[in-house]
């Protein structure tokens, strides 16, 4: 529970994904907004990291850039040593398909596909067969065995988010990005999903990066990276609710 400045990691092999001096500007001229103002941060392999910060701190923008959903204005995004920033859309698409998984706040399942088809969607797009042993284990762990034939509209919110989680994990990506994954869930379902995220990092060695503004959710992570006004504002290792809440309060007070 000590605070320290973020280490510049990236090419040393321990970081699954890293941002180096990342800048993202929306708009031009007088209306320009610097959402990211020179962020350098690394996310270690096999660990569950939470990105936190007040509204408008740039945490979602950082995640979108790290995930290749959005392109940065300057700086680098290194995914396993590959620089994503200057890549064409074709390469980004391939990276998203094969090396990155997503979990969204609003689940974002395709309404016309069954749970099973939603889970294997990234593999289908890549033209790959799922590893059935791994898939069965995943489905068992996530408690989805009896729900595979259902459409998303026939599932509860927690079940939908678990399907989304299975979809993110099934291709064993280098990084899973989760954007406020519990924002639309009741506290019990939320706790289940967070525990599953923590367990997949711990048991499967899955790298997970989660954006959240809920100290309770961040307390499940191995490490919390704090962001304020588009810049890194410290980090917390082995966080608990109290330490995260205190850090957020300090951030708010210092502005």
């Amino acid at each position: 529970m000590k605070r320290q400045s973020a280490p510049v990691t990236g090419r040393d092999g321990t970081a699954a994904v890293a941002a180096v001096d990342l800048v993202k500007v929306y708009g031009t001229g007088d209306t320009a907004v610097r959402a990211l103002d020179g962020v350098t941060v690394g996310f270690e392999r096999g660990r569950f990291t939470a990105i936190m910060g007040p509204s408008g701190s740039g945490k979602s923008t950082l995640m979108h850039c790290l995930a290749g959903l959005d392109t940065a204005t300057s700086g680098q995004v290194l995914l396993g040593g590959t620089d994503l920033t200057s890549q064409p859309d074709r390469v980004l698409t391939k990276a998203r398909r094969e090396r990155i998984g997503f979990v969204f706040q609003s689940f974002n399942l395709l309404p016309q596909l069954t749970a099973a088809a939603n889970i294997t969607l990234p593999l289908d797009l890549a033209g790959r067969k799922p590893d059935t042993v791994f898939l069965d284990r995943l489905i068992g762990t996530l408690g989805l065995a009896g729900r595979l034939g259902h459409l998303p509209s026939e599932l509860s919110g927690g079940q939908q988010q678990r399907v989304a989680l299975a979809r993110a994990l099934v291709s064993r990506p280098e990084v899973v990005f989760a954007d406020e994954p519990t924002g639309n869930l009741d506290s019990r379902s939320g706790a289940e999903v967070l525990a599953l995220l923590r367990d997949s990092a711990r048991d499967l060695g899955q790298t997970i990066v989660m954006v959240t503004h809920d100290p309770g959710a961040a307390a499940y992570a191995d490490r919390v990276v704090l962001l304020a006004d588009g810049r890194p504002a410290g980090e917390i290792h082995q966080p608990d609710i109290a330490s995260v809440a205190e850090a957020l309060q300090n951030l708010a007070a210092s502005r």
Partner: protein
Amino acid sequence: MSVLLRTQLAGVGRRPARLLLTGLAVLVASFVVYATVLAQQITERSVLNGLSGTPEATGVVVQNGDIRAADLAAVTALPGVAEAVTRTEAYVRTPGGELIVATDPGSGPLSTVTVSSGRYPQAPGEIAVTPRTVERMDLRAGTTVTVTTEEGGTQTLTVVGVVQPLEDIGLLAYSGLGTVQKLSPAGAQLNRIDVRLAGDGTGSGVPQEISKIFAGREGAPEIATGAETRLSEARAAADEIDQLFLVVRVFVAIAVIAAGLIAASTFRIVFAQRMRQLALLRAVGAGRGALARALAAEGALTGLVAGLTGVLAALALGHLIPPALSAAGIELSSPGLPLTQAALTVLLAVVITVIAVLAPAFSAARVAPLEALRSAAATGAKPGIGVLRTVTGLLFAAAAAGLAALVWNNLPGPDEDYTMAETMMLGVVASGGLAFVALIALGPVLVRPVLAVAGWPLRRLGPVGRLAIGGVGGSTRRAAAVSVVVALGVTLVTGVLVGGDSIRVLANREAVAAAPADFELRGPGGAALPAGLADTVRKNPDVTRVATYRWAGEATVGSLTGSAVTDVPMAQVPRLAGLDTESGSVTDLAPGKAVLSRIVADVDGLDVGDRVTVGLGGRQIQLAVAAVLGGEAPLHTGVLLDPADLTALGLPAAPTGLLADAAKSGEDGRTAALRSLRSVTAGQPDLAVTVLADQYDQITDALSVLLAVALALIGLTVLIAVVGVGATTALSVVERSRESGLLRAVGMSRSGLHTMLTTESALYGVIGAVLGVLLGVPYAWLAVSAIGLNAPLTLPGGQLLAVFVVLVALTALAGVLPARRAARVSPVAALSTD
């Protein structure tokens, strides 16, 4: 302005594309409705102008009675009469054959001719001739010709110009009344007087005044309005005129329904989005009444603007097309300015839009606001349909089937006197309308089976194809909403194609039977041709394919008496190969066999292989039926026999007539052949040469008018389908941008997404086209049968396949632009769309 209305308008400002698409549907609907009204006017005017000899400006026609030259002056002097001209003619003989000299004012709205060279006759003794007359009788401008009048006197006429008449029969000249009267027998009466009325020509009481002039005279002429005369003349020229107008009016009705359907199906997709927003307004305390008023105001405004734009666009198009086609050689009349229909169309647009914007408000009011907010994203994903909807759909389907069965059971027999065409067609249209309501209700259930078959090859194409099928099959409601629009378009196009093909076969059948060759030369009533005449004709280089035949009236066939019989040699008259047979084959004709016209066969219920007794002048022979024709046998006869059998019936071997074709094609070849034939028959006034080719041309001309009408109707239906699909596809892509974003986020490439969305649109097209053809062909057959023309039921497979392919390609194309847009949006932006 109320807060609510302002909120609505602000929403419009934020998402103008959505309103534009909604408005576009109404715009297209009003455009189609009004364009169809104008198309009806263009068609009816063009057909009347083409088939009637009376100019449109004619207000009153006086004819069929004792009309004297002095009456013309009396009618002209009546108040309210702007102009009165007479139409009468004199028959004279020239060295080149008989010539008709008719009267015409030569210019002005009542003239039926246009001067193409030289000038119109003014002085006595001057005439203008038609182009065909110039060719056939060698009467060029500037020449003089000596003519013999009916009373035997001779006069000299000067040709001063060439004029184009409505119909060029090739022995026609025009002049003023003075010249014509000098050529006519003394005291000859006038045929008719055409009167143009002053002002707008209504309610002037002129017909009453005219009837006073003729009061008390024995054989007083008939007095009718110009419109009545035009219609009855057109009826006389073509029996099908009423049916044609009926078809066009039925089409107007269908187009109105179609336009309503497009608008409805577009709105259905907008509903979900709207409902969410309205539920939010309700949740923060907006009253139901205030909400409805605000929406109604917005809808009325949108409807008014869209309706007016649509009507104006249709009006502009309607007045641009005839001049444009005229440049291409097709003569169509301009439509008028039907203001009542225009106002009704705009009103329809306003009502449709108001209903459309109010409907989601009422839906939103029914569900709990929070529920509406939550479920909005999932609308369209529910696969089945409710019990109420199923029952409604089945009821409508049953009603449609019942009505169709009723029409089917009352179909007319082949030559039954049939007066119910209008009622029956209404029945067909009503049944079709009901079937479409059933299709709308049951559509979501029908999507999957069609998709299972049609989508099979796509599944092999990898994940993008499978996803496209999943996308369409997963939201069957949306798929059904889009496909119904395509189905409607395909049904209409199929109907026009199948109907048009039937009429084409019918017309071709009439043309071949009536005019198997270019020329016919025969004596009166079956008299034999002079010996050696046929050989003389054969030696002539201007004619070819000379075939002699025998003809006899008053034959008995089974129980039918007074039928004409001929032995036209099929092998020597190539055009006869096009004869349309109901059953059997014309080439089977041999000694001991007969080919019967449909009417003759139907009298005794004869079919191929049956035996029939043919009698002539007391002799009888037994023959087997080789074929039954769809219409008449050649040369307006009832029975076609082998020459040996005609001889067995006691007919002399000498031919009674001959058929010949011109050796060279074109008008020149025809003229040369006609002159040769006339020279052969010179001095034998009993022998008549008929230019059958002119009859053939007339029938094919009438057909091309019908074809132009059909093409215009097809154009409109394709427009309906394409715009409807374009709007619905665009909306569907707009509504699903979130899904697109997700697919991009989990690794679908830009081109993959593009392909998937385009494939989905194409699949909508496939489903719609399958349903459309399945509905369109049976209904077209039912309509063709119900109209009572004895037209054959045909299936133009190639054309239907082409329509299928084109419509699917067009729907795919309609999806290309929206798909491109969706694929270009960044995943982050798409995912954050509400």
